[in-house]
């Protein structure tokens, strides 16, 4: 097989066919292979964190903490949810330019911003937890356990989120290098 054979073969390929009804199903997020799962994950995480905000007030003596400590915790949780929502929209919108190279360049810029935002969220979260739990609290062994558990859980979540963004950035940088390599 040579290049000319490839060319003539290529034009005759792709003869499988989906019906209009099947194609219509594919236009819905609910049938999307990735976005459906991501949206569900986003809703579950947001639900979990919102529940945490409702529970913490009694569970972690929120009413005995200063106003600023409570506010900081709420801001931190909202930042985390916002970070996830931005990430979802980044994945939902891969077309970010009027040609492929332009789109790849814009993806890199977006991912850089999101990686930075992710890191800021992680740092903010760590500071908030430490501050919140060390202000006017009587630590019991069970409260220590809960605190350590929370810190580890969120640290792991942020680590994987950061790693995921780094991997995506690496993928697009590789693409950019391939296109620009003459």
């Amino acid at each position, binding site marked *: 097989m040579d290049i000319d054979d490839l060319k003539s*073969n290529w034009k005759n*390929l792709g003869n499988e066919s989906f019906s209009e009804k099947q*194609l219509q199903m594919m236009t819905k997020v609910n049938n*999307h*292979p990735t976005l459906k799962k991501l949206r569900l994950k986003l809703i579950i995480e947001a639900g979990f964190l919102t529940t945490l905000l409702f529970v913490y007030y009694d569970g972690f003596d929120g009413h005995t903490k200063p106003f600023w400590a409570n506010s900081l915790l709420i801001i931190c949780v909202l930042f985390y949810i916002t970070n996830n929502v931005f990430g979802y929209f980044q994945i939902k919108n*891969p077309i970010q330019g009027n040609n*492929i190279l332009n789109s790849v360049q814009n993806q890199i810029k977006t991912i850089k911003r999101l990686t930075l935002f992710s890191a800021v969220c992680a740092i903010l979260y760590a500071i908030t937890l430490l501050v919140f739990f060390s202000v006017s609290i009587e630590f019991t062994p069970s409260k220590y356990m809960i605190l350590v558990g929370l810190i580890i859980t969120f640290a792991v979540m942020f680590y994987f989120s950061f790693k995921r963004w780094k991997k995506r950035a690496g993928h697009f940088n590789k693409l950019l290098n391939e296109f620009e390599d*003459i």
Partner: protein
Amino acid sequence: MQKTFLKTIQLHQNIIHKVSRMYRDTREDQQDLFQEIVYQLWKSFPGFRGDSKISTWIYRIALNTSMATFRKQKTLLEFPENIPDNYQYTDQQDMSENEERMYEALRQLNDSEKAIISLFLEDYSYHEIASIIGIKENYVGVKINRIKEKLKLILNR
């Protein structure tokens, strides 16, 4: 609008099938990518003003989506030294030997090379390829020659 869109995609779905099979190895991943491309086309359809051919627009979105939505490799894929003479397709589809050999060869190129060569094989001019990809027209020629050489090596192994 959706009816016009669906009719258009049904007419040109061969482009999406070809791009999906070139960028993904397994039947499952190819179907997922096909679906992702249709979703992105539907989202972008209101912005299509007819400045280019509809097939050009479909190619641009399809290639862009394929490169932007990469997959984790579930198992380590090792490309064979030789393109298999008789490849059994997982879905028992009746596929010609040449067709599978061709996809096997194309899958050994990197993502940017796949994009450029697919447009070349579809008979787009250097000017059109340059405008879809976003690189200079004279670079297209250089790159196509390089990809042709690479493909020759792959096909003659």
